[in-house]
């Protein structure tokens, strides 16, 4: 019986997800324990329950139906993203919140899933091949449209996640190394440009070398390098026009200790919280950094500090291991899946979750830029939690249908 169930039910993804959600709820309870914000905990608990149902529903929708609905879902979310840009409300400097009455959410959370599914559904068509430039451009456009809509909000973090999802997807789809390098090099040059002119030049030289190493023909190298230079230059212009808080976040990332009471405050306090946790932590509800609110709005992007401080290295490393196991499991589902749609979608979902996890925890530990990205299953926020749980539902679905062609 159990063996039979194991065949069709992805226990591993299910339990990892449930465990992470429970740890997340405990962390939110702790982070909002003494500041009359307990409402946050109850709301998150309700969303978790809703997410749990949606996860199971998603897990049991027939694969073909999913595949067919992908485009409709994709265009629907695109439409919502446009509406958000026009009528959405501004939260923390981004026009990303869409609400009717008391119910609302961040459409960008769902746009990530829709984009991955649409990408996979398009490539799963029998006549589509990435070796054709036309098809390659269409797949890139599937990503580019929501990316630019989200960047326009502006939501830098989600845009980065899109990139972090696109690259493994293309790689998994079998795109040539040159194309990957051609996408990577502009990013490299752009990051270099952020640091300064010298770094910009070094990145450009490095990028040119990489392009030459994986060259197909000289013309392609020249075009790709031209694009990279253009991106690098425009980054500097964009930087000038960026929101002050985003500029600050970038400068703070380059040197977080430079402004310990301003922009770098969160990171400094977050590191203190995690560092002071030690091996076993200060105990549930007994972390001084957490309980005394040294980390502003800790229950959103800095929820990882709660685990670090109150549960110590044992707790925090368990969380990291669970996330790592989920990422590897996603990769395994993609490998096992015999149909293109499931396999590619699994990779995309794994990419989204992994990117979020690495950037968020890295940020809390001071080795990643502070770019408002929630920690999957843990950070406070209904849209993200439900979207993340639905992604796990999708993974479970692909696992159950892995033998389908």
């Amino acid at each position, binding site marked *: 019986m159990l063996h039979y169930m194991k065949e069709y039910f992805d226990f591993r993804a299910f339990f990892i997800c449930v465990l992470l959600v429970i740890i997340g709820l405990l962390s939110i309870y702790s982070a909002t324990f*003494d500041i009359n914000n307990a409402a946050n905990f109850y709301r998150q608990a309700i969303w978790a329950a809703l997410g749990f149902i949606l996860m199971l529903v998603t897990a049991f929708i027939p694969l073909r139906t999913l595949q067919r609905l992908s485009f409709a879902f994709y265009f629907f979310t695109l439409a919502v993203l446009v509406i958000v840009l026009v009528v959405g409300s501004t939260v923390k400097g981004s026009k990303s919140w869409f609400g009717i009455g008391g119910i609302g959410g961040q459409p960008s959370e769902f746009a990530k899933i829709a984009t991955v599914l649409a990408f996979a559904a398009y490539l799963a068509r029998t006549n589509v*091949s*990435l*070796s054709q430039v036309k098809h390659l451009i269409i797949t890139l456009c599937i990503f580019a449209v929501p990316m630019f809509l989200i960047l326009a909000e502006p939501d830098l973090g989600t845009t980065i996640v899109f990139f972090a999802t696109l690259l*493994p997807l293309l*790689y*998994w*789809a*079998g*795109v*040539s*190394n*040159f*194309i990957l390098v051609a996408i990577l090099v502009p990013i490299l040059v752009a990051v270099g440009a952020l640091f300064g002119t010298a770094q910009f030049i070094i990145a450009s030289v490095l990028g040119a070398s990489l392009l030459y190493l994986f060259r*197909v023909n000289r013309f392609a190298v020249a075009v790709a390098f031209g694009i990279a230079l253009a991106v690098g230059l425009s980054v500097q212009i964009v930087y000038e026009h960026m929101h002050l808080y985003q500029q600050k976040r970038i400068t703070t990332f380059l040197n977080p200790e430079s402004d310990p009471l301003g922009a770098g405050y969160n990171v400094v*306090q977050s*590191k*203190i*919280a*995690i*560092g*002071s*946790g*030690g*091996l076993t932590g200060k105990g549930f509800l007994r972390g*001084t*950094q957490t*309980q*005394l*609110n*040294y980390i*502003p709005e800790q229950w959103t992007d800095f929820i990882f500090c709660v685990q*670090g401080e109150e549960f*110590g*290295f044992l707790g*925090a*490393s368990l969380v*990291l*291991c669970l*996330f*790592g196991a989920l*990422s*590897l499991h996603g*990769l395994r589902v*993609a*490998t096992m*899946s015999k149909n*293109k749609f499931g*396999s*590619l979608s699994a*990779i995309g979902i794994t990419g989204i979750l*992994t990117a979020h996890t*690495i950037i968020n*925890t*890295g940020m809390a*530990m001071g*080795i990643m830029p502070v770019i408002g990205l929630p920690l999957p299953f843990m950070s406070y926020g209904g849209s993200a939690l439900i979207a993340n749980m639905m992604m796990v539902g999708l993974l479970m679905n692909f696992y159950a249908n892995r033998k389908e062609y």
Partner: protein
Amino acid sequence: MNTIEEIGAPSRKRVLTIIIVTAFVFLLIRLYQLQLFYHVEFGKKSDENSVRTIIKEPVRGYMFDRNGRLVVDDGPAYSITVTPASFNSGTLPLFSSLVRMESPMIQERLDRGRIYSKFSPVRVKRDVDFKTLAAVEENLYQLPGVAYEIESKRIYPFQVRAPHLLGYCKEITDAQMLKAGSAYQQGDIIGSSGLEASYETFLRGEKGYEFISVNSKGQLVGALEGGLRDVPSKEGFDLNLSVDIGLQMLAESLMVNYRGALVALDPNDGGVLAMVSKPDFDPSLFSGVTSVEVWNQLNTDPDKPLFNRATMTRYPPGSTFKMLIAAAALQEGIIDEHYRITCTGAFRFGNKVFKDLHVHGSMNVVEAIQHSCNVFFYQLILKIGIDNLAKYGKRFGFGQPSGIDVGEETAGILPSTEYYNRVYGKGKWTQGYLVSLGVGQVVKKISPLQMARYAALLANGGTLLQPHAVNSILNKRTNRYDVIDHSEHSVGIDSSVMRLIREGMRRVVQEPGGTGGMARIPGIVSGGKTGTAENPHGADHAWYIGFAPFDHPKIAIAVMLENAGFGGTKAAPVAGKVMERYLFGDLPPKPNSRPHAIALNDSTHQSTISRKQ
């Protein structure tokens, strides 16, 4: 372009696996680094963030008089404090208006506090009234870093003044801080004069510490670990004084119209029964906060109320010195009780004439003391010489500090051959310089305290005592009284000699023709001696020393009144009343119902006293 590979090629799976594993291993290494490698460092930072130490001021030790009456009490005083690190300077105008203090003054206090530590609270305003405290408390939520603390301040339940004896406490100065070291912090109260200063280490007690958690806004959240790590403050030790508070108050009232000093000692152990220096000030001016105006007023007053005349003034002793000369002459065998001199009203030495007030006729030593015959002592001093005078003067405690415990005192000046050589030059002074010394004039400089000690040794028959105001200390740790030992030694005068001297002193008071009749106590025989210190700058200073009862003395006294004229008419009655009051006693005065009465002017004080008489 390359050929498209099958989706999910094994080589690509390997690469992605490696990327994921590497990324998570990196995160785990970073986590390890933060939580296990830099754990101590971050733990410390976390504590600095959220733990504040609150100093709990101890209750300062009390002072009780010899009859167990509470003389110096300790009550709560509320101080407004500001922690520089958490203070938001934007709230300075609001804060300034609440505590009614100028912003620059607050800023200056904060800047001074920051030098020591920006995390320790600075006392910005001490001893605020309840209205101010309530106003600040109501607005605490918008004043990060502001708090109040309970300190103690001195309360004087009786309307006793005795400021020079009891002393006062003041905010520690930078100089005191350098000397005292780590036990004190800026803004601490320290005993700065009198017994408060001498017994500071006992009275002070030990500070306690409370550890509290504060949130990121610096607001109090609660006790750290339920207060388990707190260190309670330890009360200061209590002092049991030898002083009789009723006597002290009477003495103060009697001295109210004079400038001068009064010291009454227990001739059996050297305990100070009363010590008055006038003019004085109300010690409660120094309890709580002392305003700059009050301090400046006291400090610049031409009558020098801060100056302890009882221990610090130096005046010639006048005729009170005659007992010392007589004792030296008798003890050295230079004269005996039958030795007589005829007083003609004047004494010629060389080409100088030294006058007497009366023509006394034939006098022996006892009669000479009784009548204060100058001629007798002009001749006697020449017989005993400067070296004998210096020898006995030293034995009698002159020219040296007495070792009293109320703070500063003068050693006075005792003339000797060396002293004269130094002042006038060797060989440039003659025996004629000595003659005036015979009646205690010119250079001989003695404090009222030394004089009281002299009176006490005459009372007890020749034992020089170390005067002291504290008999014992209640050690709060052992809950036992630690009795303080005081030195005493014999002055080496035979009892037969002492008997003659004392008989002379008895006659001064009790017999007709004695100069101290005005010190007479109804129903009790006493002994004494008047003195008048010549003052080249104005009216003479009046002295009286005495003791009672004559046979078994319980009190010895010295009174000095500046510019009051003859000792017999001004100083003797004061001494007599004080001794009478001590020997007969009276009902203990009731504690004053107004603990904070700030009475600079003496008349209110006096009226209270006289009502009780």
